């Protein structure tokens, strides 16, 4: 009995410590926020901008967080970067609802599912909040601004071009490993790429439907091993979603097939460095996520100030942007290709 009481006490102590940590943080944070609100009301223009990724805690969205936060410092706006811990649209809707109640000036969201967010984004708009999508487009009719890293069509086609370049032939068998079957943006790129391949590379043969990998390197690795064995004439693998090309490259490397099977895909330079250098990953292509975060915040600040983006506009720290004819779809620019020669220049 005594032991139990001691145990209980120690656990309670730990809990209170933890709770203490939490509340300390929240206190300082809310004090900061209050402070910021006060300065905002005195110095009028301290906007509160929410940038919500699909989920927090993965390298890609960490890099964009840094960009968004940096833009916040540079431009004197408060950036709240928060999102669900799982890529679940339901969680995103709940968080946006809470944030509407928190009273913010703009919400930029990378939707896990565009259609799911339409009602809640409408609600935000009705409350006078500037509604923006970034990374992945939301329902076009509800957003005031749509920030794309890339032209989806161009990107899809670019990946297939890279595959053909790496294989050195356009008459070969290949397979696709994707992050998840229900990831909207991954599906968009794959569909554009497949359409393009049909007309441009009619001899390219996709051996089986895209294979899902749960956004995990170990699953992509396993699936790539099986693909190589099941389709002995396979000459190329496309990995869509950042862990997929790495897993595929590892399989190719372990089987010593660097010269026989080409791997291309979307990858972050730091994580794919090893495989780029030993030749198992031919090329990874991606935009710079930090720039995307920066651009999103910078353009929102302009919009809140009443300035609309213009085609060819030079955004500091990002570069020239394209604006499509609807006046609200902004494209950051072409992707960066990472190869064994240039990968050391990047750090994200």
């Amino acid at each position, binding site marked *: 009995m005594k032991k139990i009481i001691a145990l*209980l006490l120690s656990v309670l102590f730990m809990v209170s410590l933890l709770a203490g940590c939490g509340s300390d943080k929240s206190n300082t944070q809310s004090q900061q926020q209050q402070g910021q609100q006060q300065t905002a009301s005195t110095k009028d223009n301290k906007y509160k901008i929410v940038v919500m990724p699909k989920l927090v805690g993965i390298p890609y969205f960490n890099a964009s967080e840094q960009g968004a936060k940096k833009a916040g410092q540079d431009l004197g706006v408060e950036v709240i970067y928060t999102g669900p811990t799982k890529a679940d649209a339901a969680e995103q809707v709940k968080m946006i609802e809470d944030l509407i109640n928190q009273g913010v000036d703009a919400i930029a969201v990378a939707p896990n599912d565009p259609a799911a967010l339409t009602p809640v984004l409408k609600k935000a708009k009705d409350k006078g909040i500037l509604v923006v999508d970034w990374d992945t487009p939301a329902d076009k009719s509800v957003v005031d601004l749509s920030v794309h890293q890339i032209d989806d069509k161009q990107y899809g086609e670019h990946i297939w071009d890279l595959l053909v370049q790496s294989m050195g032939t356009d008459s070969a068998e290949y397979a696709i490993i994707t992050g998840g079957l229900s990831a909207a943006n991954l599906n968009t790129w794959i569909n554009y790429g497949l359409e393009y391949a049909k007309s441009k590379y009619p001899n390219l043969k996709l051996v089986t439907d895209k*294979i899902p990998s749960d956004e995990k390197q170990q699953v992509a690795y396993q699936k790539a091993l099986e693909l190589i064995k*099941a389709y002995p004439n396979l000459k190329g693998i496309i990995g869509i979603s950042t862990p997929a090309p790495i897993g595929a490259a590892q399989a190719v490397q372990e089987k010593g097939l660097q010269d026989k099977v080409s791997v291309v895909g979307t990858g972050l330079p730091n994580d794919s460095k090893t495989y780029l250098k030993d030749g198992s990953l031919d090329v990874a292509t991606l935009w710079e996520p930090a720039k995307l975060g920066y651009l999103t915040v910078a353009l929102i600040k302009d919009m809140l100030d009443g300035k609309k983006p213009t085609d060819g506009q030079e955004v500091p720290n990002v570069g020239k942007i394209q604006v499509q004819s609807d006046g609200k779809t902004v494209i950051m620019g072409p992707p960066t290709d990472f190869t064994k020669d240039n990968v050391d220049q990047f750090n994200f």
Partner: protein
Amino acid sequence: MKQRTKSKELWIFIILVVLSVLISARSNVFLRPDNLIDLLKNNAVLGIMALGMTLVIITGGIDLSVGAAVAVLTVLIGKFMVTFGGNLLLTFLVAVAGGVIIGIINGTLIARANIPAIVVTLGSMSIINGLMLYYTNGSWINDLPAWFIDFGKITLFKFHDAGGNVVGIPIQIIIFLIMALLTWALLKYTLMGRAVYAVGGNPVSAKRVGINIERTLIFVYAYMGFLAGVAAVTHTSIMRQVDPNAFLGFELQVVAAVVVGGASLAGGNGSIIGTVLGVLFMAVLNNGLILTHIPTFWQKIIVGLIIILAVSFDVIQRKRMEKSLPRVDVEY
């Protein structure tokens, strides 16, 4: 009692054989040594975790925090190796020590405070995952030392396959086999092993014969933690990078392999041979999908149907067998 366990294992074995025959009829790759070795290597981590989970489930508990525990241990050894260099033995020690600590905390809460295992481990799962992702932000750890990467590439018992290629058994499979033997011997030949079954089968009589239930339970969760540490090193040696999100949702796969292998959540039942067969069943099932060219959008449907068929077949067969035997006790 023994008889029943044996027959369970037998049926899983038969189902596994049938499945393998079906797959190899459609794919000549499946039974090739290199494929079987890849299959074992890629499921070694699942297997190691399932061994520990077997003990936990035999005591009538469950550990939903294993995925989070292995993930945090991979991060721990990743950081450890990148910061201090270290060596293999130390890395193993760090992982195992970390795992045992997590296990002891889980076990103490379950045994001493008498909270159901599912609640404690559900709670510790969110605590461990939350804290880990808060501190790492999900960033991968990339630059692991060369000696560790070389360790992951070790293969033993090299031989020539039919095509003349040199094939060896990867170290990860060896680790899994050693752990399986160790756990099997522990259950079969030690007093602790008997205590594990007794606590799960009938805690009241276990207590009457003088078994310390608290100590047994804490040992079981600590052993699970120990295996989580081994699994963390094994996983990292395969992937050569650390992704803190790599084990999200993995706990259900571990539980699935164990219960398919015949352990019952009510406790008292389960065996290492059954679990190894359960792991193999899940591994073969997943491996066969691409090899037999099953279209992507049909894969999950087929996996689901085969699991349902396999578990129902098992029950129906056992019921039929039990009917032919004299009824001794009421089964429920």
